[in-house]
């Protein structure tokens, strides 16, 4: 456990020393939130945003978006980079346990997503008349599940992708596609045809719905199952495909 704590603390520091990841995890979601708030306001409309105001919709959604950016961009890029440079080989030769290497990445995803999520909520509450979490315990459960899902998916991508460049390119692309059609950009209700279908297939759509269910006081829907399944499959595949070099 001591080594996991040390590794997590070091990885957190490394995370904060990387401008691109900080931008995607801590700055961009906040910016997008305020742009969306500026454009759509926070008036409830029965036809879009699951029947609530735009800001009320986006705040829980962007907590999921933050977890997605850490899990899909930062984590796989860092993991693939460490493998390519021989950092993982160095760890292995010193008997660094693989659970410490992977566990630290998952822990960093949790910490950064929490910090960024709290920042989002505080910023939104101070600027708009945004409602607080309706069912806090369900929100926490949703957050844990969503962060686990994206960190497992990130570890899997980091294991499968051959280089940090390919990991970063794929991660950024996935992130933007999900942002646009997964329900973090335009309201999902206005996406029709292929875009709506693709949106429904993105993990972010379901992560957002899982976060919103607790936040907006809706009943937990099938999206929770989808996110849980994604977590299980990614974690199992990560164990199978993790490579030191």
């Amino acid at each position, binding site marked *: 456990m001591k080594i996991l704590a040390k590794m997590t603390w*070091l990885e957190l520091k490394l995370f904060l020393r990387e401008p691109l990841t900080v931008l995607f995890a801590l700055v961009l979601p906040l910016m997008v939130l305020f742009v969306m708030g500026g454009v759509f306001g926070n008036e409830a409309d029965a036809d879009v945003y699951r029947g609530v105001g735009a800001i009320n919709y986006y705040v829980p959604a962007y907590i999921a978006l933050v977890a997605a950016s850490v899990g899909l961009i930062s984590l796989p890029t860092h993991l693939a980079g460490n493998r390519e*440079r021989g*950092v993982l080989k*160095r760890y292995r030769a*010193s008997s660094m346990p693989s659970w410490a290497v992977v566990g630290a990445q998952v822990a960093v995803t949790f910490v950064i997503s929490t910090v960024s999520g709290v920042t989002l909520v505080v910023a939104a509450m101070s600027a708009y008349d945004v409602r607080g979490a309706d069912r806090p315990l369900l929100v926490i459960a949703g957050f844990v599940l969503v962060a686990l899902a994206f960190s497992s998916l990130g570890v899997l991508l980091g294991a499968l992708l051959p280089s940090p460049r390919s990991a970063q390119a794929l991660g950024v692309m996935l992130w933007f596609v999900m942002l646009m059609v997964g329900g973090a950009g335009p309201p999902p209700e206005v996406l029709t045809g292929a875009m709506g279908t693709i949106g429904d297939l993105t993990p972010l759509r379901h992560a957002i719905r899982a976060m919103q269910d607790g936040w907006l006081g809706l009943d937990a829907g099938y999206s929770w199952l989808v996110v849980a399944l994604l977590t299980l499959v990614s974690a199992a595949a990560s164990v199978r495909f993790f490579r030191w070099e």
Partner: protein
Amino acid sequence: MTHAIDVHHLVKGYRDTIAVRDVSFSVEEGEIFGILGPNGSGKTTTVESLQGLRAIDSGSLSVLGFDPSTQADQIRRRIGSQLQESALPDRVKVWEALDLFGALSDQGPPVSELLADWGLSEKRNARFGSLSGGQQQRLLVALALVNDPRLVFFDEMTTGLDPASRRVAWDLIRRIRERGTTVVLVTHFMDEAEALCDRLVVMTRGIVAAEGTPAALIDRFGGGVRVRFTLDGQDVGWLSSVPHVTGVARERNRYEVRGTGPVLAYVASALVDHELAPIDLRQERATLEDVFLNLTSGEGADS
């Protein structure tokens, strides 16, 4: 237990090449053991197999009494390793790296001592990516010593170091050995092997071409003794019939006499008998470099 390492008929191939065909050697506890060879001769594959980083095809290995294929963790906790083609994240600081790897072991010297030993005290807060090649190498070597290992592997540790740093590294290797630690040194610097190694193997094309002390190898594979001198306008063809002479070569006014054992004394005596006394008559001792070149000639070594 007197052997720190035993290698019996190690064979290891990759998808399309055989890296190690048949390698056997033993390393005694407390010695500095060298593994020499041109690039692609299987040195790195051999030491990485010993650390359980490569699954071997056949043969048997023993490191500190443990089998690398089934007890790699037991081995890795007791050894130190500086690997080729391994690095640290660019943004990690020197002290952070030592602190992290130190946390894997309960023993080992304090970080400040390692920093001082390897001349990194002033760089403790520098990021890995900002260090020079030599400083990075010294940090990686220091990392190999954080757990106070009984056995250390150094794979081309002085590559990238300037001459002064190399000498410092040599002194530190001798100090590591004085503490009773066994050192396995993979290198392609012959002067380094000659200065440091108690015994060594020369590998070529995945086999052991020669094994022994540097002196024994030089005696056996060094190509004998060479005597050189300069003379103007003399016919010295009679030199080839002097005892212990095996050949005479001439380039303009410079002569090279090849021979064995006490050839210098016989050549000197014969020259004086002919009333010749070249002022630069000297014997050149073969070095490990000659051994290496003799054993690996025709291999197209690119190192």
